């Protein structure tokens, strides 16, 4: 197992490369989720404001 992580002396490089791969793609996958949630929240807030605007003269 330790040998597996050691990667013939190249462990640091190999695992760093894989870590970058996973982390960047994970961030990329989460971004649209956040964005969608933010947009929906903005729209809902705006709808509320609009209804307020219609009620106040």
């Amino acid at each position, binding site marked *: 197992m330790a040998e597996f992580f050691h990667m013939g*002396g190249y462990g640091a490089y190999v695992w760093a490369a894989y870590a970058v791969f996973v982390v960047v793609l994970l961030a990329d*996958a989460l971004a649209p989720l956040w964005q969608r949630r933010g947009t929906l929240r903005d729209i809902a807030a705006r709808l509320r404001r609009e209804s307020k605007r219609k009620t106040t003269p």
Partner: protein
Amino acid sequence: MNPLVLWFHKLGSPPYFYRFAGRFLPWLYAIALVSGAIGLYGGLVVAPADYQQGDSFRMIYVHVPCAWMSLFVYAFMAANAFVALVWRIKLSETLAMASAPVGAAFTFITLVTGSLWGKPMWGTWWTWDARLTSELVLLFLYLGVIGLYHAIEDVRQAARAAAFLALIGVVNLPIVHYSVVWWNTLHQGQTVSLMGQSKISQSMLWPLLTMAFATHVYFFASLLARARAALLALESGKDWVRAIALAQPTREASAHG
């Protein structure tokens, strides 16, 4: 009308696309995850160490698929940009702009993993040879497209301007791909080829192809997710979006700042 054409027409309608994409997304993510796991297992465990490079060659399984994707996504973005500019199809604008961040992510991974691979192989993190340089330029092109898109306030105008820029940048794609042929570079030449004979053994090849498949599927998943989010913002005045927003669980929604 031909049912396929009809379906395409329907796909152009944002609410339909939104629902359609929402239905497919989980499956795409699942396929990408599973095939990615298989590919990584194959690359990290099954494949033998390279006789020259030892275990460091295992970086190929992230480096090369991402490198391929960085080019593929740009081509996809440019094709959509072309359609968006010529036929003014809103969905193409959205798809082009949704591909840019994913492509930039793949380009970034290519640069970093290449750099990490270069340190043990060439003894330096970075050299200014043609392939590395043109890939860096590709990253700048992606960033330019994204930057321009976010800098302009009107969303559709922003998409069209950025699409225009993306089209101009297409000249860089052949340079990246053929740089190893046109100039003598430190970077490895063509090793894997779909048509001819690959210069790499089968046990090393299949995990690579699996990873390539996984990254393609992942790209389309991410693309659909981004396009969905962008469509919501773009169509925020339409009733179907309002309905979705109102159906959202309303926590203490403080929307300021």
